[in-house]
């Protein structure tokens, strides 16, 4: 008996080492530069001396990705590792047998690798479910010909924007999708507003109302265009008719070659006692699939993909903003003004909620934003949205 248990112990110690000679399949939704950069990371991982694992990748179109994961993974037909933003994370965890909890593998050294808010985005119900790979958030993009010194506070912003606005000529000081709740969240978070409080929806929190009223004041001041669709903002900025834009790294690729631009952090809100604007971050995480047969190998790759070397490739070649905090000390990355600016921005940003109930927020919030931007009663509009979201959440949760 004693001998057998000793053997079992030996086997337990040795087997993971033996079993790790494994093939790891990774699904992602990248194309173009991001895809080639990621494939380079994978090739580098596979080529490491002494590495017994072989990683292969599959690109899946973004529009089909979440459905494909939900269909395949719980039935054990999916990948070992997959990459997606945190907004679906809560839903997959609640559905079960999709995302493997990785808390057990984490130690302080590993946790310290990441920008804290990106790791927070990977946390659900007190456990960590994936390692953050990169983040996206909005910042201030400005036309250097029109804006010599970007505003540090909203008071400066308002003054500068008013100065640069000539409505007759179609010139605006500031343009951003202010009717979109995702963009508006930057103002709301500065006031300390939020969508959920300990899991309960609080769209009508007094801070949220204050943020909405500030937006109404901005609209009234007339330095922003009406009906700000993303297409309008792009074309205004490209024609030199919008001096400043709030947008994310996805916007940078659309800027016309002739424009001399730069990125910096969003200003602090004078109206919120000088607190910085805090945009929502979308964090892409690397997750181990719960039914994977090669979890150790899978986690080994997850660690590698979020480590320094990989982050450097993803930043410089894939044009991503890595969640790995250490990579910003790399001379090449530090010398990149865009990456540095977004890093400064994310340090004050807030991860977008990863609760499944977040999907119920968008439609009522969009309706409320429509009414607010048309000059309606901010408090009433938010109260209406809150009632709708609260009712939907209650309908879902009564089954819990």
């Amino acid at each position, binding site marked *: 008996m004693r001998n057998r248990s000793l053997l079992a112990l030996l086997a337990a110690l040795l087997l993971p080492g033996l079993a790790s000679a494994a093939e790891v399949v990774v699904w992602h*939704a990248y*194309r*173009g530069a991001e895809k080639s950069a990621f494939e380079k990371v994978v090739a580098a991982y596979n080529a490491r001396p002494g590495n017994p694992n072989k990683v292969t990748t*599959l*690109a*899946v*179109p*973004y*529009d*089909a990705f979440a*459905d*494909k994961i*939900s*269909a*395949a993974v719980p*039935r054990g*037909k999916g990948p070992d590792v997959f990459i997606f933003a945190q907004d679906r994370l809560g839903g997959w965890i609640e559905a079960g047998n999709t995302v493997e909890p990785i808390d057990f593998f984490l130690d302080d050294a590993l946790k310290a690798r990441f920008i804290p808010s990106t790791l927070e985005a990977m946390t659900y119900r007190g456990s960590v479910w994936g390692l953050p790979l990169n983040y*996206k958030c909005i910042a201030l993009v400005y036309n250097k010909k029109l804006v010599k010194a970007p505003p540090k506070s909203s008071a400066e912003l308002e003054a500068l924007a008013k100065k640069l606005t000539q409505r*007759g*000529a*179609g010139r605006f000081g500031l343009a951003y999708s202010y009717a979109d709740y995702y963009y508006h969240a930057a103002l709301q978070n500065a006031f300390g507003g939020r969508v959920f409080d300990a899991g309960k929806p609080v769209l009508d929190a007094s801070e949220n109302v204050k943020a909405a009223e500030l937006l109404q004041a901005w609209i009234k001041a007339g330095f922003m265009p009406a009906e700000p669709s993303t*297409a*309008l903002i*792009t*074309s205004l900025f490209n*024609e030199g008719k919008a001096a400043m834009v709030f947008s*994310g790294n*996805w916007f940078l*690729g*659309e800027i016309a070659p002739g424009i001399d631009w730069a990125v910096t952090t969003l200003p602090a809100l004078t109206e919120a006692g000088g607190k910085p604007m805090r945009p929502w971050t979308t964090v892409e995480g690397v997750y181990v699939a719960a039914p994977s047969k090669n979890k150790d190998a899978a986690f080994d790759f997850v660690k590698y993909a979020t480590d320094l070397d990989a982050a450097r490739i993803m930043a410089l070649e894939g044009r991503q903003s890595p969640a790995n905090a250490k990579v910003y000390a790399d001379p090449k990355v530090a010398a990149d003004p865009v990456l540095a600016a977004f890093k400064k921005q994310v340090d004050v940003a807030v991860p977008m909620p990863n609760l499944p109930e977040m999907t119920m927020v968008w439609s009522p919030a969009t309706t409320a934003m429509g009414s607010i931007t048309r000059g309606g009663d901010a408090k009433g509009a938010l109260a209406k949205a809150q009632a709708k979201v609260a009712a939907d959440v209650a309908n879902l949760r009564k089954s819990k």
Partner: protein
Amino acid sequence: MASRREERIPHWILHAVLVVMVLVAVYPLLWVISIALSGGQSLALASLPADPGKLDLLRAVIPWPERFSAANFTAVFRDQPFGRWMLNSVIVSAATTVLGVFLASTAAYAFSRFRFPGRRAGMMSFLVSQMFPGTLMLIPLYIIIVTWLGLGSTRTGLVLMYATTAIPFCVWMLKGYFDTIPRELEEAAIIEGAGPARVFWTVVVPLAKPAIAITALFSFMTAWNEFILAATFMDKEEMYTAPVGLRFFVGGFSQQWGYFAAGSIIVSIPVVVLFLYLQKYLVSGLTAGSVKG
């Protein structure tokens, strides 16, 4: 014929109607072409100066890119194996067409010519199968195709699903058409000693060519433009179909409408070619009318 000329609608009126309809049909497509040829990636159609005059408006309404570039078309083939995906689409769609039309025409023949218990229920069940909304079907379908039948990531699985989607319309269409073919022709063949299979293949199918052409086109289109099943069920990039490849360009944070438009144009060319081939069966007075005389 010439004697009743006074009842004819003058051809110029017909041409006028057709030209107007062609303009309506083609106008949005010209925007697709113009986006594809612009070399840019924006879906925005046109921009106006701050205070537009009539001429500016007129220019904005005409789908004409500000500059021409074939960059979008070359990029579609350069960055990904788009040719390979087109080939997969051709294989899957052709197989769907053959399987769908074959199964549908035999079934439609049975429904049209035989009286048997369950006939009406069978016809209705084809109709009923189109009624249940598909939004919640993805997971059960995944269980059947992948878990039970083990056809995940195979062309067979896709073809089965597409053929099943296309068959109900094909059965109804063909059954309706078979009903119009006089039975005397078949009876004559039976008297000459032909079995049911021979009657079907040598008498009925040739007479039903227009309907078969339509169902073939329909089956092909069902498979050709389908995106979500192909993306969900295929687990290898080299197995993807063209619609899956197209969707890589849009979705998520950055959207490359220029590539998507160029890809869409490339993808619709085979459909046009197929239609060019099939349309001879839709030309007046070639088939049924003359045979029946």
